[in-house]
Every structure is written in C-alpha cells, then in structure tokens.
C-alpha cells in the first residue's frame, strides 16, 4: 500500500528537464561581450522617458504596412486553413501541414524573397502559408470536438454545404471567431518581425532606429505597438473587417514585379543540390552532403537543442515566479495591476525583438536569446496560470505567503502549468532556430549564411532538418502530455488561454 512516500511522475519529469537544462547550460556560450552593457541598457531605458514621435509619417507608414500584411496574411491563411480543415483526416494533409507549420515565418520569408523579391506576395505567403497550416489543424480539432448531435438529426439528403451551415457552424462559430481573432494578434507580431529581413514593416523601422542609436524612436514604435495590440478588440470588428481586407492590398502594393525567370530558376536550379546539377560522382556527392551535415547541420542542431532546453526550463521557472503577481490569492488589485502591466509588455513584445535588443546591448552569445525566450514565454504561461489560479477556492483558514504558494496553489496548478509549458516547447524550439539569424549559431544562423552565399540547395536541406526537429519535439510533447495525463479542459479550448498556449 502507499506506506512509502513516492514523488509523482510530474515531479520526476520536471527534474529530468531541469537536469537536462543545466547540462545544456554548460554547453552553451553564455557571456556578456560588449564593453559597457549596463550603460547602454540605461540609455535604452532613458529613451522610454522621451519617446520621439517626430517622424510620424514614417512611423505611420510602418504601422500601416504591418497591419495590412497581418490582415491579408491571416485572412488568407484562415480561408485556406478552413478549406483544409474539411479534409484534414487525410494523412498526407496532416503531415504536410505539420511540416509547413514547423517552419518559422521568417524562414518562409527568406525563401520567398528569393522567388518573388520584395513583391508583396513574399510577405503575404510568409504569413499566410504557415498560418493556413496552423488554422487547418486547430479548425479541424474544433470541428472534431464540437457537439455533433444536430448533425446526426439532420436529413442525409441535404447538401453538404447546407448541413454545415445549419448543423455545425452556428454552434462552433464562437470557437472559430475567438481562435481567429487571437491569431490576428500573432499575425501582427509576425508581420512586425518580417521587417527584420527587409519587408517594409515595423521591424525594418525598428532595427534602423536601433542601429542609429535612436532609442527614443525605438520606444515610440514599441509603445505604439503595445497600444495597437492592447486595443485590438476595439478595432477588429466584424463590420470593419471587409473594409480592412479591401484596403490592405492597396497599402502593401509596391512597384516591384515578379520575375518569372527568377521563379523558374529557383525551382529548377537554385534548390537542386549542387552535386546533381554538376553531375558529380557518388563519392563527390557524399562528400558534399557529409560536409553540410557535419559542419553545419550538426552544430546547428546541437546549438538549437541546447538553447531550446535552457530556454524551456528558464521559461518554466519564470512563469512560476510571474503567476503570483496577477493572482488574487497573493496580491490586492493595486499590486496586481503592476503585475498585469509587466506581463502584458513582456508577452506583447515579440521574442525576436527582445532578443534583438538584448543582443545589441550584451553582444552575441546565447545569453540574450535565453533571456528573451524566457521572458516572453514565461510571461505568457505566467499569465495563463495566474488567471487559472483565480478559479481555485481556498478554505477560510488557508495558510498565507510561501506556505500558501507551495502547499495550496502549486500542487493544484502544476499539471496545468506543465501542459502549457509542453505546448510551448515546440514554439520555443522554432524561435530558437530563428534567432540564429541574429548571429547565435543555431540552425537559423547556418540557413541565413547559406542563403547569403546563394547556396539555396543547402539552405533548403537545413530548413528541412529544422522542420523535422520541430515535428520531433511536437511528438515528444504530445507523448509526455499523454503519459502524464496532462489535459487542458475542452471548455477552455475557445478561450485566448488555450490559443496562447499553443499558437
């Protein structure tokens, strides 16, 4: 019988991850390289006191572009995703979607830049394609789990479309709406980030302001971005959406044209592995491939995994520290307001921008990436757990302070916490890979270098490896969640919490 105390499986798995994280930390290069990092950080925060709006036309243009790309990308993605959701039971659709999802928007942008140049199609596809794959999966889940009783009662003779609109859509509409509007928020972040690879969105303006040391402009942009996200429910209205969708193409339009010669060359020459084009012998081809795998893929995979595991554990620890800040069991409304502001700012700022800023301040090492990933993801999970904790009812004689935290709340919330953290595992890995573009030697670094050296064949192989790694992590996460019986309840599926946890 239960006469010897045994720790729960969740406890053991948690320590396994912590241990793995610590081992990874030894293999990561964590250092502050720049000469006066704190001086620079101080200058950055002084910029917050003097936000500079003087260049309003340029700022306004960057925001319009960001908005237009996000709206068109998400609208297109949700339309395609909705169609795909109807046939999501086909195995090959599921697998293709998993791969498309596993490749970050920025990698898609780098690919499409080669094909279409700076034509608006590049930005639209970079957002639309991975979003369509995500929408397909989540829409299919919503359809699968929704109430089917109305469907069973309806006449089989009615057309598929009438059946759908009468028996399914009315009940599921809210779920679709909540998820889609949440994804629009993600789309705004994605769209902003695309500026870092040359599209005319927020990231472009932000990075140039940063390089020139105009921290006041940086803050003007960031503050406006927070405002845009915070007010999203006021300006995203069903009645206004058609207006946005009609206006957006005119905003993103530019005078660049698609060179069909480029498109043809990309598919028939650029991405075909060089040994095939050259007609190399088998041993020469093998040499080419093993060189790529040993010198780029392997170190890239190692660094991506190291960064992911350290960032995952750090995110977990931070979210456990963050959640009491907004929990009714620990702070009064005034205190909670500060907690909310902190968490909103951290989770609204895309991790890529956080990493970019910290990297400029501290120099290139894994440290800025770890801190950025941990702050962003820790704030998201901390927010979710904090809100969840409010539903816990405590006895009138419940303990206070640390005793309350460790005895009353943590055991009750821990399963939920792990579920959310494992949902974010794959997202953290995707981000770890992409942060390589900033100069940290993860897979993104090698992909970006290959592209700059015009070795698209190598880049495509590396992107494929990155996507496979992601699919693997996604599967591990699913396995662990099933093994530990971690479940987020179906009721919270249509809430922002659920969406935020899984993107």
């Amino acid at each position, binding site marked *: *019988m*239960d*006469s*010897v*105390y*045994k720790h*729960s499986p969740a406890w053991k798995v948690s320590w396994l991850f912590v241990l793995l994280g610590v081992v990874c930390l030894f293999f990561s290069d964590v250092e502050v390289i720049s000469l006066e990092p704190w001086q620079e950080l101080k200058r950055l925060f002084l910029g917050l006191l003097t936000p500079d709006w003087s260049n309003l036309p340029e700022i306004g243009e960057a925001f319009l572009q960001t908005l237009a790309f996000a709206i068109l990308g998400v609208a297109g993605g949700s339309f395609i995703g909705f169609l795909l959701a109807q046939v999501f039971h086909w195995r090959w659709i599921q697998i293709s979607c998993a791969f498309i999802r596993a490749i970050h928007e920025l990698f898609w942008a780098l690919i499409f830049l080669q094909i279409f140049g700076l034509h608006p199609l590049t930005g639209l596809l970079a957002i639309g394609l991975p979003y369509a794959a995500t929408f397909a999966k989540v829409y299919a889940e919503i359809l699968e789990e929704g109430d089917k009783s109305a469907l069973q009662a309806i006449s089989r003779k009615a057309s598929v479309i009438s059946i759908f609109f009468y028996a399914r859509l009315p009940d599921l509409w809210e779920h679709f709406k909540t998820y889609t509007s949440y994804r629009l928020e993600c789309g705004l972040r994605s769209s902003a980030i695309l500026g870092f690879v040359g599209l005319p969105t927020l990231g472009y303006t932000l990075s140039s302001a940063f390089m020139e040391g105009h921290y006041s402009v940086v803050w003007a942009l960031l503050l406006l971005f927070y405002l845009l996200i915070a007010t999203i429910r006021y300006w995203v209205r069903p009645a206004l959406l058609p207006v946005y969708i009609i206006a957006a193409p005119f905003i993103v339009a530019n005078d660049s044209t698609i060179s069909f010669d480029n498109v043809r060359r990309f598919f028939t020459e650029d991405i075909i592995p060089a040994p095939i084009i050259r007609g190399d012998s088998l041993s020469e081809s093998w040499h080419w491939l093993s060189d790529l795998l040993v010198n780029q893929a392997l170190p890239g995979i190692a660094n991506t995994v190291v960064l992911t595991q350290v960032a995952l554990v750090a995110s977990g620890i931070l979210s456990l520290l963050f959640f009491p800040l907004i929990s009714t069991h620990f702070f009064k409304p005034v205190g909670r307001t500060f907690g909310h502001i902190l968490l909103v700012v951290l989770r609204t700022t895309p991790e890529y921008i956080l990493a970019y800023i910290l990297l400029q301040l501290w120099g290139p090492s894994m440290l800025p990436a770890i801190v950025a990933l941990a702050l962003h993801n820790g704030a998201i999970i901390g927010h979710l757990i904090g809100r969840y904790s409010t539903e816990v*009812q*405590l*006895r*009138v*004689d*419940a*303990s206070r*302070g*640390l*005793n309350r935290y*460790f*005895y*009353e709340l943590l*055991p*009750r919330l*821990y*399963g939920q916490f792990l579920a959310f953290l494992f949902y974010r595992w794959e997202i953290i890995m995707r981000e770890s890979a992409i942060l390589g573009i900033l100069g940290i030697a993860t897979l993104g670094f090698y992909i970006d270098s290959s592209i700059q050296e015009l070795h698209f064949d190598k880049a495509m192989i590396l992107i494929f490896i990155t996507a496979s790694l992601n699919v693997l992590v996604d599967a591990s996460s699913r396995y662990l969640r099933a093994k530990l019986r971690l479940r987020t309840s179906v009721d919270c599926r249509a809430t922002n919490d659920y969406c935020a946890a899984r993107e």
Partner: protein
Amino acid sequence: MIQLQSETASYQGVETLHDIDLQVCEGEKLALVGQSGSGKSTLIKLIYERYPVNTALVPQDYGLVNNLSVFHNVYMGCLDQHSTFYNLVNLIRPKAEQVEVVRAILAGLQLEDYLFRPVGRLSGGQKQRVAVARSLFQKGHLLLADEPVSSVDEQQSRVVLNQMLNGFSTIVLALHDIQLALAFCDRIIGLEKGRIVLDSPAEAVTEKDLLSLY
C-alpha cells in the same frame, strides 16, 4: 468561550442568520441541527470569523489539495506552527517525526493504509476523514465541523465522532443526523430559517422533538 449577541450574517448578499444569541462554555459539545438552508453552515462560518485563534475547522467542502498525499493534506493543519523552510523540506521529503504523528491519527480513522496516496485518488468518504484528520492534527481549544460525517457509513461515523470528542474539549458540529447528535453531543441547537428555535441539553429532548424541525 463563545459569546454571540444579536448577531446577523449574510451569505452571498442574502441575510441568512438573524438575531443569534449564543453562549458556549469550555467543555460543551454542541450539535447544530436543522434543515439544509437553515443556517448551520453560516453559523459555523460566523463563529470561525469571530474566534479564528486556536480553532480547528472541518469545512463542508474539505478544501483538500488533490495532488498532494494524505500525509501532506493532514500536515497542512499545522503549517503556521513551523518555519517556512521546515514546511518546504517536509513537502519534498516528509519528516519522520511528523509522519509518525499523522500515521497515529490516520490509524484512529481507519485510514492508515492511505498515508502517502494522493487525495485525488480517494473516495468521498475517505476524503472526508482526511479533512477530519487534518483538524485532529491541528488541535486547539475549539473544533468547528460542518457535517463531518455526511459521507461515511454509520459505523465509521461513530469512530470519527469519537476521535473528535477525544481530540477537542469544546466542539460545535453541524449534523443533520439526529440520532448521532443526541448520542454524541450534550447540547442541541435547533435552527430554522436562520433563527435559533431550540437550545436545550441533549438529555432533555427526544428524537421526536427534533423531527419537528425537519
């Protein structure tokens, strides 16, 4: 020991107790009887609010943590009597001296086999006895228990009530079972629609008198 004078109390914005006068002396064993909704739970809460020091509580919904073991849930009764550091160490690695005390209490409630089982895997009656065990572990001058034997069978009810009587000198129990109230308590308080309509020594009332309250 307890002194309430013309007290009123509200539950979720509605006044559920009116004009309560109640004196309880050291050593008395009170049973609160009455229909559900008559104000028994509210009266228990009211007494706890007035006299929280050195009072052990068995609330109706137990307030147990499902993911913690029976041992830890019982130990939670005494969190304020130890340093936070001690509590945290005990959470990770149960302290032998605490385990012994808890084990003895559980044995008295026929629960010793479940010492380290997560509470979430217990039955309703077992959970209820864990909540009682917690109050016995906590000790104090006064025990306030809201329907502490509602989910256990007749035989076990007697075991549980005996343990409570041994553990505390002064007891206020909300009990809907009249026979048990008469058998274990020395004073009966009858409640109806939020008012005290009966206050009598147990030997002076019969089962029949009390049935009129229901």
